């Protein structure tokens, strides 16, 4: 069961990610990014991080992607024109790709605990909202408050950036 779900979700995630990068229509990019984020939320569930999966869908696939689609609508972005086809760039990407295909499995198998097998229902850390909330409001309390300030500053910053200076 673990295998079936992992391979299906991994394939979906990688295909959506490649589509985000490869297709030239920005609306298609955005919709494929939504599907990639939902696949990632499902992978969080296979890792028994249920609260994070919910947050991923609500914040990323919901709020952030609506923001992207709003900007696409606002800017009336056309299909991107192809740039100059530069051989050094293509060669560099190809080289990195080959190195990655060889190196990634080796690198990750060198990681401690890399051979540990996934069994559902045997997680030592349940990822429910209760457990995370307890951590957030005890050990990570100051960080949590700082994040609130950060969000406030970001909101004010966005309003300042997007204001038109006609009435000033």
């Amino acid at each position, binding site marked *: 069961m*673990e*295998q079936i779900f*992992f391979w299906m979700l*991994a394939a979906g*995630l*990688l295909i959506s990610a490649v589509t*985000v*990068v490869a297709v030239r229509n*920005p609306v298609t*990019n955005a919709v494929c*990014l939504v599907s*990639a984020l939902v696949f*990632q939320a499902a992978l*969080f569930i296979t*890792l028994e*991080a249920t*609260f*994070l999966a919910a*947050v991923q869908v609500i*914040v*990323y696939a919901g709020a*952030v992607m609506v*923001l*992207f689609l709003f*900007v*696409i609508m*606002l*800017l009336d972005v056309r299909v*991107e024109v192809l*740039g100059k086809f530069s051989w050094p*760039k293509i060669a560099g990407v190809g080289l*990195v790709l080959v190195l*990655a295909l060889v190196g*990634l*499995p080796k690198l*990750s*198998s060198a*990681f401690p*605990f*890399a*051979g*540990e097998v*996934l069994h559902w229902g045997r*997680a*030592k*850390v349940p*990822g429910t909202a209760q*457990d*995370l909330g307890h*951590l*957030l409001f005890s050990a*990570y309390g100051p*960080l949590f408050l700082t*994040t609130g300030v*950060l*969000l406030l500053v*970001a909101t004010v910053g*966005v309003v300042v*950036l*997007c204001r038109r200076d006609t009435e000033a």
Partner: protein
Amino acid sequence: MGGEITLGHYLVLSGALFLIGLAGVVLRRSLLVVMMSLELLLNAANLALVAVGRFQGIPDPQVAVFFVITVAAAEAALGLAILVAIFRIKKTTAADQMASLRF
């Protein structure tokens, strides 16, 4: 491959996702798509964090991912605001048109 799913599988998947996102950041010209690729990079890091936390039995990486998601939302809002501001001046979102500061 085949057989049981291990932590290594999740790490390789995360690395592959990171590479795809990196290719998007390097190769694409539209700033919108570059920002979407940045979200992919952050997601790859999140996946690796959650996987390691799950297999090592520590809850702290999940808290870290929570903060990453929060900061990524703020980053997306600010980045898109800057993009809109630039679009008003330059009438384009292509990254190679924005060379006014180039010496």
